């Protein structure tokens, strides 16, 4: 088997058994990048190769000395370009940060360094994570490894494509409304959005502070649990991170769902859903039922309001979060200005892309005097109702199962002229962010066109262990 196709836990076994060296692993990844990056464009920047290989050499020396490795030590990882690595570029795929070099490490980066993972580079994304296709990148789109004419999903499309193509073994993405799960579904990999507060946001360039969460994008469920083990936990630098005891998530990788009650929301199987996607999800539901899970139809009555609510709250927060990009202290500054307000206006008009400007304007509007109550405040109230929908549902069931996205990967350019159509690509993932609950997308089959289909499992807040157990069981059963 090819190294670039192996999940991290298998590479770890080979490293420990000294069947391969860490330097070989890295060279294989470099080779794959050399072969595929030209057509996929998963990355925006790469770390210096010499540096990367030196780190791999250190891992090999540890092995030679008989020292124990951390479970993901020496594993090549790709990082979405909205997380700060000290001394590396963090562009958020925006012209306004094209040459910005971060002066500090994000908390997740610190944790990955402590556990010996090796950073390969920073991956492409929709500008400031605004999008569902990675087409809104100032540096050009990423292509889906399964069909180069199609999008990889977004906004963490670069990370998902890198893992799917073998340009990295694992990756980090960020998910504000589905930005990890939807590209994972489109690229046939596993993407987890943890509970809000599970992973520190310190060093993640904020899109919508109350919705953003960093999570793993991996080749399988086991890697997802391993990577969550490394990045999760309370952080003094993030007041919204939650201080609770951390489980070892690999303990939940048990192929057993007997007695589990799994809810299927009726609202998710109505209009706009691709029939192939529906059929594939229903097959998995049958499979789970066959191996002992109890399937129950449930209702999430406020589902229809998810997208509207999301685009009010997320854009409101984004309008303030992006105000700092003003050309004064760092980032792009327009040369055509005579006054202070011209400096602001021109730098932002020239520095931000179309979708970023659209969302800043939307967010500014919903917070404006006279509109605040009608939009933002109303949005907060509906958000509470959506949360309450899930609370009600989780009184009856352990987890909820849905399609990740209504369709498989669409063609590049297909939806760029119609933002509303694009927004609907996140219709099944957005509610989890509004409710703060965790969700995973795992591959559950392929369409006739050989495009991956993703299945989403949602659980109550801090219920990642349940998610892992169900996802792992389903993953194993689907292999058979």
């Amino acid at each position, binding site marked *: 088997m090819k190294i670039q196709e192996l999940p991290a836990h298998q590479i770890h076994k080979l490293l420990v058994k000294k069947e391969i060296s860490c330097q070989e692993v890295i060279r294989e990844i470099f080779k794959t990048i050399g072969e595929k990056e030209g057509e996929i464009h998963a990355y925006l920047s790469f770390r210096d190769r010499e540096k990367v290989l030196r780190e791999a050499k250190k891992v090999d020396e540890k092995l030679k000395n008989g020292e124990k490795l951390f479970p993901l030590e020496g594993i090549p990882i790709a990082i979405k370009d909205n997380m700060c690595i000290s001394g590396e570029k963090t562009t958020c795929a925006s012209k306004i940060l094209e040459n910005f070099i971060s002066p500090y490490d994000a908390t997740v980066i610190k944790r990955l360094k402590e556990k010996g993972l090796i950073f390969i580079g920073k991956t492409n994304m929709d500008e400031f994570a605004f999008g569902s296709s990675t087409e809104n990148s100032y540096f050009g789109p990423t292509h889906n490894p399964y069909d180069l004419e199609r999008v990889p999903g977004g906004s963490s499309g670069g990370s998902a494509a890198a893992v799917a193509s073998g340009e990295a073994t694992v990756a980090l993405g960020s998910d504000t409304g589905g930005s990890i799960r939807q590209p994972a579904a489109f690229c046939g990999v596993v993407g987890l959005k943890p509970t809000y507060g599970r992973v520190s946001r310190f060093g993640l360039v904020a899109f919508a*502070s109350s919705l953003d969460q960093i999570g793993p994008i991996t080749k399988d469920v086991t890697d997802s649990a391993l990577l969550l083990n490394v990045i999760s936990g309370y952080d003094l630098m993030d*007041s919204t991170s939650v201080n609770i005891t951390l489980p070892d998530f690999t303990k939940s990788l048990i192929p057993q769902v007997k007695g589990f009650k799994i809810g299927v929301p009726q609202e998710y199987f109505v209009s706009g859903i691709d029939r192939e996607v529906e059929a594939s999800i229903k097959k998995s539901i049958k499979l789970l039922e066959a191996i002992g899970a109890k399937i129950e139809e449930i209702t999430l009555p406020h589902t229809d309001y998810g997208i509207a609510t999301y685009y009010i709250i997320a854009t409101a927060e984004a309008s303030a979060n992006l105000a700092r990009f003003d050309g004064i202290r760092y980032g792009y500054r327009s040369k055509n200005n005579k006054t202070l307000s011209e400096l602001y206006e021109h730098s932002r008009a020239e520095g931000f892309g179309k979708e970023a400007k659209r969302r800043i304007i939307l967010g500014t509007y919903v917070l404006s005097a006279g509109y605040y109550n009608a939009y933002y405040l109303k949005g907060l109230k509906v958000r509470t109702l959506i949360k309450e929908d899930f609370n009600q549902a989780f009184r009856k069931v352990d987890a909820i199962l849905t399609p990740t996205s209504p369709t498989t990967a669409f063609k590049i350019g297909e939806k760029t002229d119609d933002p509303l159509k694009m927004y609907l690509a996140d219709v099944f993932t957005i509610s989890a962010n509004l409710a703060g609950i965790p969700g995973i997308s795992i591959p559950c089959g392929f369409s006739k066109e050989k495009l991956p289909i993703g299945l989403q499992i949602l659980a109550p807040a801090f219920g990642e262990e349940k998610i892992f157990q169900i996802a792992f069981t389903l993953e194993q059963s689907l292999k058979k």
Partner: protein
Amino acid sequence: MKYETIVGLEVHVQLLTNSKLFCNCSTKFGEKANTQVCPICLGMPGVLPVINEQAVRLAIKSAFALHCEILKFTRFARKNYFYPDLPKNYQISQFEEPLAINGYLNLGKKKIGIKRAHLEEDAGKLLHPEEEAYSLVDFNRCGIPLLEIVSQPELKSPQEAEDYLNVLKLILKYLEVSDCNMEEGSLRCDANLSVRPQGENNLGVKTEVKNMNSFKSVRKALSYERERQIKLLEKGGKVNQETMLWDEKKGITLPMRSKEESQDYRYFPEPDLIPLAFNEEWLKKIEQEVAELPETRKKRFIENYFLSDYDAGVLTSQKPLADYFEETVSRGGKPKLVSNWILTELLGRLNSRHLTIGQSPFTPAHLVELLKLIEEGKISGKIGKDILAKVFDSGKSPTSIIKEEKLTQISGNALLLKVVVEVIKENPKTISDYKKGKERALGFLVGMVMKKTKGRANPANVNKLLQEEIKKL
């Protein structure tokens, strides 16, 4: 027509914390530009704020001192506006759920209402080099905690506004919440002023007056603004609701360039910080610290300890100083003496070393010990002062210093007699002057004995011995 003046004040004070409101940067004043900064207070991409507990404590302390209601649940909000001294282009402040509301401040017999008090972060400072086409910005001040205290429109004259500021400063300095230095910018004040015909119930149109840099200039600016508004109304004109800038040199207020439309700050709850809810016990502890305010304590010092108005005022200007005094008294020091020693000996020495009373190496226990030694006649007052200096430098106790340096008074008469006889022999001229009736001559002789004994003799004893010995001649 007679007019009534209505003033409301908005005061910002910098809180005396070691670090900034949302990061670990130092709050030290007067450092080199942009040296007290980090990615967080510079608003770099990806950073998050973390609240400084000490700032919350100081804010709550002030709120208790101003008799405010502390809200059970308080939250931060983003105030959105673009300005180069504001790195995030929003200020983290409080809006709908401030820390404290509905308090008052005693101004003589009058109570002036406090509408609200809330925490927020300070902005940086813009510098405009002369004849240059650019501006510079210093972010050292950016993120320093501010407490905004908003009074009700209940001040009835410019003088009352100045008095309010003086009382507020007294309280906040006493509690060591802020040093309230308007010249250094640790206290800033904007005022709203309106006038109305006497007897009228509705408030007149107000103007906001800014740019005053001392309490006196607040009074002067408001007096000017009051006259300006009255003159305008008497001519049949109307007051515009606008912001006026005080020009200290010219002694006038001038309208700020009027904005086309009023600023919309688009406040919304700060999603990066969780709301604060306070532990009852924690609140109670802070409340106890402010149980007695300086005014009451001063009165008590005058009544209970028979101190002068001035002495009591100085001692109660800072809480730790008043505590120091009372601890010394409770350990047995005589109030008047303790007060004298603190005010004449200790404070000067602390000031010259830039120490606060809390950092004094000379403790209340040391002072009590020293006063006892003087009272028992073991040392003279003069030596007492030297000992204070030595304790101050070494931290050793007065008794051990006396032992080490053999500074006790010569109490055995034999030794003293020897010196007295010596002095008499050496000064025959003075002796004869004294015998001729020059009483002052004796003082000179006493001084000579004291000099020879390096101050260790008891002057009363010396006096007595000298007279006896001279009689014998």
